[in-house]
């Protein structure tokens, strides 16, 4: 499955202190991706609101950004989801808080609810800014999963568009792949050799994925591969945090129930404490 470029970018906007920054980020991205921007506002349509949006957008309108503003009343989650479906949005941008209160976490904030249900790719921004902060380092997951190939391809496409220089592909290796338990010197030696072998296997798998990506996307980029033995979903977030990545690109989750939130795994870990801006490729 080949990935599709982002033709339409959607953003959910409310009148919060972050409004300007969010809109700026979305507009800049739309320009870089050469795509259309759709502003989705949950609420009544008034001239006043429209004017505010247009003022904020004006510097980008001058650069020929095509923008559509949609007003709709209703439940924020439903509105944003249906509008982005109707308008064929490829990438949905949402502002999010870095850490959530426990209550919010289990009930789900709007951004997280949308993320869980969305059928298009979602970008969660934790620190949008009016000034452009160049995106220098992208971390992408390299899980052994059918979706991974598409995700890595998207990451290269994005870093090509954004002009970032470094991509780290993190292969999270589940603990249970290492069948031997470390108990003494002998088992430790066994485990070390086993891990070495798994690392090699993973690295060559990633290599073959990269080889399939168009050269023009990979040429100017330094590619690092970092195998990590750890909890899937959590370690990559932790890694993105300590390696100070500007963007974390992840596979979309396969299924989501309340159970997954009580015993979080994969993407839920990342949603629980966003380490940086997160892009979930659908």
């Amino acid at each position, binding site marked *: 499955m080949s990935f599709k470029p982002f033709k339409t970018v959607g953003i959910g906007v409310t009148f919060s202190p972050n409004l300007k920054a969010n809109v700026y980020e979305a507009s800049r991205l739309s320009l870089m991706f050469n795509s259309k921007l759709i502003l989705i506002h949950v609420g009544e349509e008034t001239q006043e609101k429209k004017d505010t949006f247009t003022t904020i957008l004006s510097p980008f309108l001058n650069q020929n950004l095509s923008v559509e503003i949609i007003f709709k009343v209703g439940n924020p989650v439903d509105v944003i989801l249906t509008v982005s479906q109707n308008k064929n949005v490829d990438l949905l941008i949402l502002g999010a808080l870095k850490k959530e209160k*426990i209550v919010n976490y289990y009930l789900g904030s709007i951004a997280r609810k949308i993320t869980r249900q969305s059928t298009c790719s979602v970008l969660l921004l934790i*620190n949008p*800014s009016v000034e452009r*902060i*160049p995106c*220098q*380092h992208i971390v992408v997951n390299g899980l052994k999963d059918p979706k991974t190939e598409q995700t890595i391809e998207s990451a290269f496409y994005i870093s090509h568009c954004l*002009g970032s*220089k*470094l991509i780290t592909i993190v292969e999270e290796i589940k603990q249970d792949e290492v069948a031997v*338990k*470390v*108990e*003494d*010197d002998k*088992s*430790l*030696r066994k*485990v*070390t050799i086993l891990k070495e072998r798994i690392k090699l296997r993973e690295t060559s798998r990633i290599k073959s994925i990269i080889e399939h990506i168009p050269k023009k996307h990979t040429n100017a980029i*330094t590619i*690092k*591969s*970092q*195998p*990590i*033995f*750890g*909890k899937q979903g*959590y*370690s990559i977030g*932790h*890694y993105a*945090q*300590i390696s*100070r990545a500007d963007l974390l690109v992840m596979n979309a989750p396969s299924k989501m129930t309340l159970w997954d939130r009580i015993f979080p795994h994969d993407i839920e*870990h990342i949603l629980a404490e966003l380490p940086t801006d997160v892009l979930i490729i659908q």
Partner: protein
Amino acid sequence: MSPKKPTIVDFLKTLPKNIFSGFVVSLIALPLGLGLAMASDAPPIAGIIAAVVGGLMVSVLGGSHVTITGPGNGLVGVLLVAITTLGLESAYAAIIFSGVLMAILGFLRLGKLSDFFPSSAIQGMLAAIGLIILGKQFHIMLAHRIERADTIDYLLEIPFTINDALHYEKEGLILAALAGLISFIIMVFYPKIRNKYLQLIPAPMWIVILSIAFSYYFELFAHEANPIAKNYMISGIPEFKEIIAQLPTVNFGKIGQFSFWSSVLALTLIASIESLLSIKAVDKLDPEKRRSNVNRDLKALGLATIGSGFLGGLNVVTVIARSSVNVNNNGSNRSANFFHAIFLIIFIVLFSSQLTRIPLPALMAILVFTGYKLASPESIKKIFSIGKEQVIIFLVTLFVTLKVGLISGILSGVLITIIIHIIINKSLGLFARNILKPNVLMYQETDADGNYYISVKHFCSFLNYYKLKNKLDAVQENQDVIVDFSLCEFVDHTVMENLNSYRDLFLKRGGHLEVIGLDMHDTDSKHPFALRRLLPVPNIIKNNLTRRQTSIEELAENYNLKYLHKKQKETLFLNDFIFFRTKNINHINNQLFTKNDVINIFDIEFSEGEFIAKEVVRTTMLHISLNKTIPEFTLDREGFLEKIYAFAGFKDVPIQNQVDFSNRFYLLGEDEEAITRFFNEDLVHFFESNPYYHVESNGNGILVFGKERLASIKEIKVLFDFGKRLKQVVTS
């Protein structure tokens, strides 16, 4: 790299050493076994049976290498309770069941059990056990047998017993008390006497030999009965034949009772904790640097305990004192444990009647000394120096253990620790929210060094220490490990202490473990193991130096450098560097200078972006000030910073005839001609053949740095060396 497999030849070669070591250990094991059993109100031979069964079975089945097994002093308190409440025959049943539970723990791989208890609580529990032993046996040592309901009463009566002992009138009692006192003096002063021949026989054995000799003197030369009162002599050491012939009846009748199972649980818990702590401590002593398989040891100890229980013996645990004697006498594998058991059998076969000539007070003096060592003022003082909160944990555990029991004691210790941690952090959420999260990340850095980097998030205390331990255990001890706590808000004493023992272990085995990222954390004592909490606002006046800072201080001394740990806001010398154009320098600290101030290494904290986008970075850099002008340039490998430098009018400078260098490095600068001249062959070769750093010049200074995190001491040394040689190449 893998060590060679032990062969039969090696085994035979080391056999004489191990037989000798087993012999020396058996000399201690004999009196200790008798004493521990009697202190638990069991027949004296029960201790020997435990040591023999333990030695024979664990040496065959166990997973550790130089440990010695037998009756443990930690169990005295629990066994005493079990025997007094259940009766001896049911107590044997409890011992058998605790053996079963221990083996199950082993099969479930619960060898990490002891990691779930805060170390101050364990200290408190051990001290309480020491006081239980000391309190009860002190009176017998002075030939003044009393029965009290409560352990604390025993302790409170010590002065009265001393007073009574000074006014004994019967010769038998006076001599018994004297035997106790002399034995105690031997125990205390033996380690201080450094005489090769005297030290051949361990102190407890001297006591045994001297008291038997005393008794023979009266029998053979004075032709009198032993003047020591009869009821203060060891009674009932059966002959070897009798032990085999008369197996004790084990009574499983009380299996339905609550008190039975609480005894079983207490026995299992204490036996496991004592064994696990001992194995951990002995592993550090092992000259061959082997790692013990604790789960296998637990299984073996469990099986041995079952066997010992059926034969009328006590619980089998791994014991620290006897194991250390084994190591000191060059015991090198499990056969030493086996031979210690064999020698014990020989002693019982040959000398069982002689053993009844030992006066009880003499034997109890050995136990009083062990009890004193467990609850020694030094160990209590150590806890005081770590911090007030540790003292509270320690004392609560100690008193609850004495007043109620061992299980309640250790549980209260855990509870009070959790409460104190919550109060110190003023947050329950920090723990509640993050306890289940896999907060430890470890990976091998992909650069040439291949260091293992471990980052810990949120909090790290005894509650989730096992996660960190699991990662550390997966690293071979000859590797380099860096543990970073900068994302961690709270680190407790248990973790600090355990990390310190890991540090020792790694050092001993040729590796290196270093803790970074604690400089911003606050603590209220000067002890290196004190718990540490991340401060919301970095404090201006540092309370004490972290381990890393003291190491830097040492490094400064060794390298003849000046060291300044104070934070410094004046960083004018860094301002011209383009790297800092988009960054705010908060401060630099931990500065190292060469004598002429030319080279300066420092930790720096700077931030990128503002307000919500603000990211704070701490890293270690090296600055060389030059007294000549060189072209401005930046040398980088990843091309990371290309963009920023483009603003400054920098462009890629190719160096002619050095294609390889140009391919590997991004050399950027404005004045292409000057740079090409400056990068002569020497300099190019220098960069090609040395570890990679980001190098930048502002015309009259050079800035060198590596990773975007603080450097470990080892990395500082490498950086310093790099800087020194770079300076030579540049100025030559």
